[in-house]
C-alpha cells in the first residue's frame, strides 16, 4: 500500500515538473487545452522592456520636437507631461487591446494575456489588470527607488507600511497556483506562453523494422511513462548519433528488464529501440482502447487490492 502511494506521487510530480501547465482550462468546445503559464521572470522582463521602450520613445519624440523647434517652450512642457502620462496605464491598456493581450515587451518575450474563463479577452479585463498594475508594481517600485535611505526624518511607520506593501504584492503572485497577481485576480486573466505548434515525425513509421519479435509478457512490463521517455530519448538529436553508447546502455537495460536476450540486440541499438517502441506503443494503445490506461511500470493506476 505504501509503495503504491509513493509511486502515485512520483507520477504526479513527473507531469508537474516537466512544464507549468495550466489546469482546467476548458474552451467552449469542451476539450481542455494545456496552456503553459508564463514564468514571473518572463513577465518581469516584459514590463522592464516596456518601460525602456516607452521612455526611449518619449525621449526621441521630445528631442525631435525640440530640435525642429515647432513648439513654444510651455507647449513642450505640456507635451512631456501628457506623453509621460500616456506611457503609464493608457499605453498598457491600448496595446493589450490592440494586440489581443500583448504589449510590445510581451511580444518580444513571447507571452500574452488570456481570459481565465476561456472566452475572448474583454476590454474591462484589460483596464482592470492595468489599473492595479500601478499600485502593485509602479508605485512600490517608485517609492523604493526614491526612498531617502539616509534621512531619519521619514517615520518608521511609513517605512513599515512600504515594506509590508512591497512584500505583499511581491509574494502574492509567487504563492499563487496560477501565478496571478492581484490585478489578474480582479480582471480574471492569466498570462501564458504564446504556443508554438511543431509536428514531429511519427516515430512508429520512420524506420524499417529489424525483425525483432516481442511476446506479450515482454510488452506488459512498461507503461506509457516509460514509453514516452523512450520516445524523448529517440527524438533527442544529440543522442541519435553522438551518444550511440548511451543508446546501447538503454537498449541493454530494457532487454534485461523484459528478459530479451542481450546478444539479439544486434549492432545498432537504435533499430532495436525503434522496433521495441513501436511494439510497445501498439500494445499499450490497444489496451487503452479497452479502457486500460497503464501509467508506468509501477502500475500505479491499477485497481488497488482490497
Amino acid at each position: 500500500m505504501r509503495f503504491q502511494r509513493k509511486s502515485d506521487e512520483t507520477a504526479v510530480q513527473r507531469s508537474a515538473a516537466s512544464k507549468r501547465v495550466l489546469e482546467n482550462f476548458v474552451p467552449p468546445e469542451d476539450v481542455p487545452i494545456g496552456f503553459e503559464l508564463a514564468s514571473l521572470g518572463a513577465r518581469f522582463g516584459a514590463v522592464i522592456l516596456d518601460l525602456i521602450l516607452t521612455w526611449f520613445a518619449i525621449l526621441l519624440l521630445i528631442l525631435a520636437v525640440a530640435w525642429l523647434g515647432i513648439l513654444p517652450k510651455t507647449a513642450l512642457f505640456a507635451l512631456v507631461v501628457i506623453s509621460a502620462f500616456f506611457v503609464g496605464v493608457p499605453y498598457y491598456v491600448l496595446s493589450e487591446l490592440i494586440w489581443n493581450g500583448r504589449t510590445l515587451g510581451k511580444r518580444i518575450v513571447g507571452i500574452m494575456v488570456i481570459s481565465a474563463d476561456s472566452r475572448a479577452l474583454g476590454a474591462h479585463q484589460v483596464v482592470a489588470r492595468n489599473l492595479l498594475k500601478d499600485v502593485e508594481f509602479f508605485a512600490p517600485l517608485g517609492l523604493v527607488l526614491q526612498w531617502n535611505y539616509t534621512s531619519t526624518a521619514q517615520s518608521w511607520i511609513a517605512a513599515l507600511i512600504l515594506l509590508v506593501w512591497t512584500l505583499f504584492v511581491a509574494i502574492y503572485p509567487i504563492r499563487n497556483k496560477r501565478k496571478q497577481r492581484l490585478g489578474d485576480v480582479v480582471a480574471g486573466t492569466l498570462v501564458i506562453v504564446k504556443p508554438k505548434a511543431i509536428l514531429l515525425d511519427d516515430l512508429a513509421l520512420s524506420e524499417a523494422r529489424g525483425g525483432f519479435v516481442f511476446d506479450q509478457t515482454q510488452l506488459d512490463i512498461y507503461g506509457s511513462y516509460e514509453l514516452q521517455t523512450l520516445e524523448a530519448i529517440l527524438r533527442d538529436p544529440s543522442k541519435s548519433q553522438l551518444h550511440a553508447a548511451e543508446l546501447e546502455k538503454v537498449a541493454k537495460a530494457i532487454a534485461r528488464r523484459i528478459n530479451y536476450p542481450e546478444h539479439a540486440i544486434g549492432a545498432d541499438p537504435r533499430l532495436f529501440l525503434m522496433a521495441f517502441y513501436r511494439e510497445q506503443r501498439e500494445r499499450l494503445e490497444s489496451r487503452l482502447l479497452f479502457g486500460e490506461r497503464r501509467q508506468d511500470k509501477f502500475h500505479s493506476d491499477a485497481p488497488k487490492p482490497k
Partner: protein
Amino acid sequence: MTDQFSASPNRIEAELLRSARFRMLREPGWRKLEALVKQAETHGLAGLNYTEAKELAALYRQAMTSLALARDISLDLALLNYLDQLCARAWLVVYVPQRSLSGAFGRLLRQGIPQAVRRSLLPLLIGFSAMMLGAITGFVLFFRDQSWFYTFVPGGLSDGRAPGASVGYLRDTLYGDASLHSGDVLTAFAAYLFSHNTNIAIFIFGLGIFWALPSFVLTFYNGLMLGASFALFVQAGLGYDAFAWLSIHGVTEISAICIACAGGARLGLAGLMPGQMSRRDSLRLHGRDAVKLFLLAGLMLLVAGVVEGVLRQSVTSPEARLLIGWGLGGFWVLWLWRSGRTSGAKA
C-alpha cells in the same frame, strides 16, 4: 499544397498501428489549419476571405475533436503536444474580441457606466463622505489653529496662498491677471493638473484593493487640503468668490476623485465581505463595476481639465462660474441617474 502531407491511400490501409493511421488521415487538415492560423496571426481575422474564415471555424472544431480523440487513443507524445499547441493557437485566433472599440465605448456611456453607478450606492457614499469629512475637518481645524494649513497643504500646490498672504494677492489668484496667465501657460498647467489628478485617481482606486482603507485615507486627506485652502479664503472675506472659483471645475474634479475612491471601495468591500462567493470570485464580479466607476472618474477629470484650461481664467464673474460648475454637476447627475434604464425597468 496540402498534398505533400497526405500519404497514399494504400499506405494508410497497410498501417496496422491505429494511432498512426489516425494521424495520417487527419494530418492534411491540421496542416491547413496551421497555415490559416498563421495567416490570421499576421494579418488579423480581417485578412481572411469568406471561405477561409469558414474553413478556419470548421478546421478548428475538427482539430479540437482530434485532440479529444488523440488523448484517448494515442500515446505518441509528439502528436499530443502538437495538437495541444495547435488548438491553443487556433483558440487564440478564433476567440479574439469581436466587438469594435468605438461600439464598446458608446455602450459604456449609454448603459455600462450609469448602471454601474446606480449599483454602487454604498461605495459612492463612502467616497463622498470621505471627502466631505476631510473637508469639514480641515475647515474647522484651520479656524482653531492656522498652522494646520502647513501640515495639510504641501508647498508645491499652494503657490503662495498661505496664511498671512494679502487679501489682494488672494483675490488675484482667483480672478487672474491676464498678463500673468497667458493661454500657453494655462494649457500647460491644465495638462499638468490633468495628469496629476488622474494619477492620484488611479492610485486611490488601486489602493482600494487593500480592504478600501487606503482609498478612504487618501480621499480624506484630499478633503483636508480642500477644507484648509477654502478656510484660508473665507478668513480673508473671499468665501463666495473662492466658492465660485472652485465650483467651475471643482464640482466635476472633486466628484471624480470621490468616484475613484468609490471604485476602490467597491473592490475593497468585495474582498472584505465576499458573502457566499469565494473572495476571488467576488473580486472578479465587483471588479467589473469598479472599473466602470474608475472610467467615469477618468472621463470627468478630462472634462474638468478642459474646463480648467479653457474657462477658469476667462470666465471671471462668480455667478457665471457657479452656473457653469453646478450646471455641469447637474448634467452628470442627470446622465448617471436616467441613462441606460431599460424600458419597464424594475424600480
